[in-house]
C-alpha cells in the first residue's frame, strides 16, 4: 500500500542488510554460526567451487540460510527481507571469493563475530580479461532458486515478511570487476564501455522479466551511482550507458505488475530528475552523509513524493556514534514529514552494520513503535 501512496496500518520498515551479531542476539537469535562454520569448512575442500555453486542453485539450502535472517527481521518488525538473485559466488580465493561479475570479495569478521563481506577489488585487469570470463546468465537455475527460497520462507512465516528479490544493476557490476583505475581507462573507449554496460543492463532486464513473470511484486536493484561528493561518472555517461537500461527495466517490471526499488548511495542530485523519469517506484536511501546539504530526503520528498516512494534515511554514523536524543528527533522528523499519505518506508541511511549499537537501534525502533501507526501524529 505504501508503494501505491496509500496509508497502510503502520509505516513499513526496511533494511538493505542487517549484519550485527550483537543486535541479533538481543532478539534471541543465535547469529548464523551455520554460515560462518559453513564458509570456514567449505573453503578448505578441494571441490569447494563446485559444492558452493551447487548449494547456491538449491532452493532448499538457500531457504534454510534465510530462515534466521528473516526471523530476526520479523522480531525487529522489519517488513521486507531480501533474497539474493545475483552477486553470487563463482570461485574461492584466499580470504574470500570472486563473484559471478568478477568482483573480488573479502570475508572477514567484526569484533563481535559478525561475518562481513566486503569488496576488495576487481579480478579483470583488461577488457580482454572481461571477454574471456563466462558472463552471468539470467537463466541459471540459481536465479529462481534464490527468489523461490525467499518466497518459501515468507510463506512459512505467514507472510509477516515480504520477500523481495535483489539484483545487480548497471553501474556497480560494470566498474567493480575492474577496479576504478582500470575501468576509467575502459570508459575512455566507448565501444568497450558500451559492451560492458549493455551486458549488465541486459542481464538486469531479463532477470526483472523472469522475476515479474514468476510473481515478484517488487525487485530491488543494487546500483551505487555515486559517492559522498557526487557521481562516479558524468551525467552524460549515465544518460548514454545506464539510464536507458533503467527505463527499459522499469517498463518491463510495470508490464508484469512489478515495482522497482533502486538502491543507490551517493549524491545523485545531477541526475535525480532523470532517474525519476526512468519510472522507478522507490529509492533508497538518499544518503544522509553526502557533502551536498541540498541532497536532502525532506526536500526531495516534497518535490517528488507523489511519484516516488522514499526509503530511508537515518545516518549509519549517527547510529554508531550519535546522541540518542538526536537519533530520536531525526527518526520522528522522517515519520512526521514524509510518512503521511503513504509513499514512505522507514529505514537507515544504508544498512545496520556491526558498529550500530544496541541502545541506538532500540531508540530507532521505539520511535517507530510509538509514532509509526497511521494516521501519523508525531508532535514537533
Amino acid at each position: 500500500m505504501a508503494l501505491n501512496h496509500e496509508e497502510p496500518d503502520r509505516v513499513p520498515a526496511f533494511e538493505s542488510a542487517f549484519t550485527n551479531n550483537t543486535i541479533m542476539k538481543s532478539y534471541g537469535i543465535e547469529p548464523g554460526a551455520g554460515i560462518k562454520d559453513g564458509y570456514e569448512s567449505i573453503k578448505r575442500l578441494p571441490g569447494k567451487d563446485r559444492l558452493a555453486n551447487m548449494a547456491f542453485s538449491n532452493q532448499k539450502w538457500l531457504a534454510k540460510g534465510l530462515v534466521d535472517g528473516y526471523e530476526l527481521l520479523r522480531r525487529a518488525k522489519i517488513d521486507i527481507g531480501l533474497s539474493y538473485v545475483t552477486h553470487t559466488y563463482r570461485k574461492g580465493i584466499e580470504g574470500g571469493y570472486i563473484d559471478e561479475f568478477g568482483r573480488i570479495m573479502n570475508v572477514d569478521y567484526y569484533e563481535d563475530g559478525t561475518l562481513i563481506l566486503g569488496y576488495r577489488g576487481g579480478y579483470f585487469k583488461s577488457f580482454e580479461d572481461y571477454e574471456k570470463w563466462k558472463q552471468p546468465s539470467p537463466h541459471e537455475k540459481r536465479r529462481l532458486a534464490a527468489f523461490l527460497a525467499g518466497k518459501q520462507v515468507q510463506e512459512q512465516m505467514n507472510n509477516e515478511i515480504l520477500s523481495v528479490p535483489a539484483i545487480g544493476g548497471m553501474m556497480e557490476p560494470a566498474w567493480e570487476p575492474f577496479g576504478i583505475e582500470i575501468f576509467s581507462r575502459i570508459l575512455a573507449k566507448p565501444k568497450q564501455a558500451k559492451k560492458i554496460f549493455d551486458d549488465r543492463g541486459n542481464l538486469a532486464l531479463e532477470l526483472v522479466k523472469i522475476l515479474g513473470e514468476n510473481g515478484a511484486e517488487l525487485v530491488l536493484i543494487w546500483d551505487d551511482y555515486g559517492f559522498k561528493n557526487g557521481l562516479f561518472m558524468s551525467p552524460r555517461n549515465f544518460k548514454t550507458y545506464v539510464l536507458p537500461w533503467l527505463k527499459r527495466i522499469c517498463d518491463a517490471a510495470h508490464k508484469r505488475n512489478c515495482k522497482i526499488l533502486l538502491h543507490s548511495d551517493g549524491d545523485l542530485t545531477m541526475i535525480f530528475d532523470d532517474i525519476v523519469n526512468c519510472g522507478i517506484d522507490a529509492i533508497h536511501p538518499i544518503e544522509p552523509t553526502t557533502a551536498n546539504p541540498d541532497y536532502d530526503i525532506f526536500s526531495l520528498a516534497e518535490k517528488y513524493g507523489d511519484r516516488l516512494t522514499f526509503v530511508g534515511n537515518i545516518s549509519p554514523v549517527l547510529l554508531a556514534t550519535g546522541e540518542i536524543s538526536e537519533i530520536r528527533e531525526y527518526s520522528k522528523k522522517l515519520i512526521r514529514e514524509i510518512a503521511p499519505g503513504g509513499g514512505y518506508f522507514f529505514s537507515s541511511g544504508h544498512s545496520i552494520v556491526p558498529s550500530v549499537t544496541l541502545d541506538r537501534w532500540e531508540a530507532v525502533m521505539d520511535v517507530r513503535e510509538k509514532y509509526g501507526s497511521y494516521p501519523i501524529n508525531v508532535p514537533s
Partner: protein
Amino acid sequence: MTIELDIDNIAAAVSSQIERGADAQDILKALTDGMNEVGRLYEAHEYFLAELVLAGETMKEAFEVLKPHLSSAEASQKNQVIAATVRGDNHDIGKNILITMLISGGFDVIDLGMDCPKEKIVETVKESGAKVVALSCLLTMTINEISEVDRALREASLRDEVKLIVGGAPLSMDLAKKLGADDFGADAIDGVRRIRALLEG
C-alpha cells in the same frame, strides 16, 4: 594532455620531449599544471570521479617515463606524507587519487595500502620521520581506527611530531576532530590543499 586525459599517447609525448632535450623539471611542471586544472574541472563539476581517476592513471604513465630523468636528491622529510586506508577497510580509490595528486604536487608519498594496522603506521612514522599521516576511511564500522592511530602515536611519543588528516564517506570535520585527527579533507583536492597548509604551518 593530462587535461585531455590522453592516456594512450602521453608516455610517447613525454619521451619525445625528453629526447628533444626538454628539462625534466619543466615537463613535471607542465604535468602538475595539468593535474591542477583537472582538479579545478572536478570542483566545477565538469569532470567527475572517473575523469579524476583517469587523470591519475595518465600521470602514472607519464611518470613511468619521466621519473628516471628527475633529480635523485633525497626526499625532504618536510614533504613526506604517509598515506593509508585504516585497518578493516579495503577501499582505496580516494587514497590513490590523493597520492597521485600529492606526487604531482612535488610530495614524496609512502603508500601503506589498505587495511593498514596502527602498528605499521607508527613504525613508518618512526622510520621515515614523515610529518603528515593521511588516513582514508570509508566504512562507518572502521572510523574508530582513527582514534586507535591517534592513541598509538601518543603512546609512541610521536603524536606531537606528526599531523593527522583524514578523509572518507562517514567523516566530517567535527567527527574527525572527535576521533583525534587534526584535519579533514572533503576530497582529494581539498586534502592536498590542507596537507600543504599543515606542512607549511
